């Protein structure tokens, strides 16, 4: 009995320690399972503003994925709440404008088109692409277009080059080839505008490699 009595406090300590460990494990698992709202890292005002924008986007049928992604990027880049909210607002504005310019397009195309606007292209330049061609995806065209402007090619030059290629029925490989050549020239020190002008001359417009040429416009409305 004396032995047992002496053992009890130690057992009690061990039990409480074990209990604490189990609680910590449970808390860790529960926390991970709940996936706490990442926007909680922002100050209440910025968070509220972003949540309003997400709600508006959802109501307008604009994808919220790029907006949330933009917010998360800002949070992980340690930007302050106002900067994050401003970046999300800007992204929402570009998505709205792209939607107006292009009409109903696939989500990825819309996001890429918004990036073209963000790079500096004008909505009217984008609206040319509203004339949709069946089975054609303009994701690559928009992506390389935005890249060229971001690398310093004048917006007008980049827009007319991409638009011309697109109207000629260039496929993704052609856009990629043009981009690769221009990027290489820019990295070698050539003026971005001159690099594009040189390369666009040697880039033939090609019909898309899919079965048939474009079936003609499905929508002809433009801004």
């Amino acid at each position, binding site marked *: 009995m004396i*032995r*047992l009595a*002496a*053992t009890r406090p*130690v057992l009690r*300590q*061990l039990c*409480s*320690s*074990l209990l*604490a*460990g*189990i*609680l*910590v*494990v449970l808390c*860790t*698992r529960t926390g*991970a399972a709940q*996936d706490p709202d*990442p926007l909680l890292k922002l100050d209440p005002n910025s968070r509220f503003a972003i949540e309003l924008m997400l709600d508006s986007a959802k109501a307008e049928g604009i994808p919220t*994925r*790029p907006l*949330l*992604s*933009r917010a*998360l*990027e*800002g*949070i*992980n*880049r340690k*930007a302050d709440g106002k*900067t994050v909210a*401003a*970046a999300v607002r*800007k*992204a929402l504005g570009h998505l709205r404008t792209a939607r107006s310019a292009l009409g109903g397009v696939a*989500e*990825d195309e819309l*996001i*890429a088109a918004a*990036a073209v606007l*963000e*790079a*500096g292209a004008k909505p009217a330049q984008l609206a040319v692409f509203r004339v949709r061609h069946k089975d054609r995806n303009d*994701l*690559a065209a928009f*992506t*390389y277009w*935005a*890249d060229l*402007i*971001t*690398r310093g090619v004048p917006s007008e030059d980049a827009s007319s080059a991409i638009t011309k290629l697109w109207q000629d029925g260039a496929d*993704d490989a052609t856009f*990629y080839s043009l*981009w690769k050549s221009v990027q290489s020239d820019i990295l070698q020190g050539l003026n971005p505008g001159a690099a594009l002008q040189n390369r666009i001359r040697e880039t033939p417009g090609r019909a898309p490699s899919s079965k048939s040429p474009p079936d003609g416009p499905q929508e002809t409305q433009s801004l």
Partner: protein
Amino acid sequence: MTDSDQHPYVEWIAREAQRPVVTDPAARERIMLAVRAEPMPQRRSRVWQRVFEPRALRLSPIASTLLAAGLVGIGVITGKVVNNRDVRPPVGEPKVHAEVPQLPVSDTVVKFVFVAPEASKVSVVGDFNGWNATTTPMVRTANDSVWTVTLPLTAGRHVYSFVVDGSSWNADPHAPLAPDDGFGRPNSVRIVGRGSAL
């Protein structure tokens, strides 16, 4: 004057206490008979005694605190290991779209490569992992300056960057740039086709 003068019972109590106790002579024999009637306890082996016999442990407060901290630590590490084994996609990670008739979209595997000879750690962040620098660490190859990671991504457009040593965000020099989105440095874009990535 003594106490006994004041308390007449004291002497009586003392006398009673000094009187020898008369016991039944047979009592001792009865007790011994009862003891002999009890079965002899079995003697357990030493190993048994060491392992299972209760013993008194003495722990100082600091020792018990350290013990508790150690147990909590074991709990936390176990929890982390178990959580890491979970196949839960992080925010923005691709999901399999059943309606795609070809290969499942998440079967499109994309390899990211970044050259950073001086870096001690590199990770890829993007819309596919919630821009979290701890989610997708890259692995230094035998070349020592090249870091790589392979990821399943959904078909479509993905924006990403490489984070060097946890703080420096870098665009991919071999991929198209996304315009500056308000945070100072442009990201890169990867277009992932079904079954292959540009």
